[in-house]
């Protein structure tokens, strides 16, 4: 019985000791640094492919946008007539019209 108690005490003592073991106070900082490093590595891995894709997509979009904007333009065909007349010859119109009436 005494031995049983002794063994139980030994086990409990070890558990208590290991439970109270202090971890590195910078463990959280270490974890965060590892997380950031992993994040950076992920972005680095993804970037080159994405860069190429994005540049190609940008050029394609710009090309088609240029075409579509260009084809939106319609030249207006005006039917209005313009007459350029010389002021000095304006009176002749009256003269000619009078002749017509005669």
């Amino acid at each position, binding site marked *: 019985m005494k031995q049983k108690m002794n063994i139980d005490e030994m086990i409990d003592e070890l558990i208590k000791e*290991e439970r109270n073991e202090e*971890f590195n106070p910078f463990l959280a900082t270490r974890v965060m640094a590892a997380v950031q490093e992993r994040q950076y590595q992920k972005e680095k891995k993804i970037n080159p492919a994405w860069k190429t894709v994005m540049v190609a997509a940008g050029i394609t979009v710009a090309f088609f946008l240029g075409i579509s904007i260009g084809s939106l333009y319609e030249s207006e065909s005006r039917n209005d007539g313009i007459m350029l007349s010389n002021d000095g010859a304006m009176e002749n119109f009256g003269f000619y019209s009078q002749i017509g009436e005669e």
Partner: protein
Amino acid sequence: MIQNILDGSQADFEQLVKMYQPNVFRTAMGLLHNKEDAEEITQDVFLKVYDSLSSFNQRATLSTWIYRVTINTCLNFLKKKKGNRLLVGLSALLGLASKEKQCEKLVTDKEEKDSIRKAMQELPGKQRLAFVLTKYEELPQRQVAEIMQISEGAVEQLVIRARNNLRKKLEKIVG
């Protein structure tokens, strides 16, 4: 908090790390009995949590999920350490050598502790898990049952059997 982390908030993740690291570390200590290994595992666990938080099923509580990740990481670590069986064998041989000393009642404190650690390592998997979660983490049976996905009664039985097995193993050594 989880949503914030998923949205990329590292401050929230750091808060989560600080909140759960004592639990992860203690559980790892209980399973590995080595401070350096437990710290390494703690770091690995949080990296896994960060990577797979999006797959976290909110039917379980976050702590239960983190305990499961911790246990799996520790078990994988121990599997990888199988290569070190030679060392375990050597320590067993040393244990035999030290038995003579034990007969002379000259068992040192360190030898005693190593014997307990070894006895714990040799417990069947489920007994060991139930024992560590109950004794090291002092978790209620309900939560241990949830983590191990067994009934509360089964947890109680496992802890009792673990304690009895430890006694048997240590009685042989202590004599």
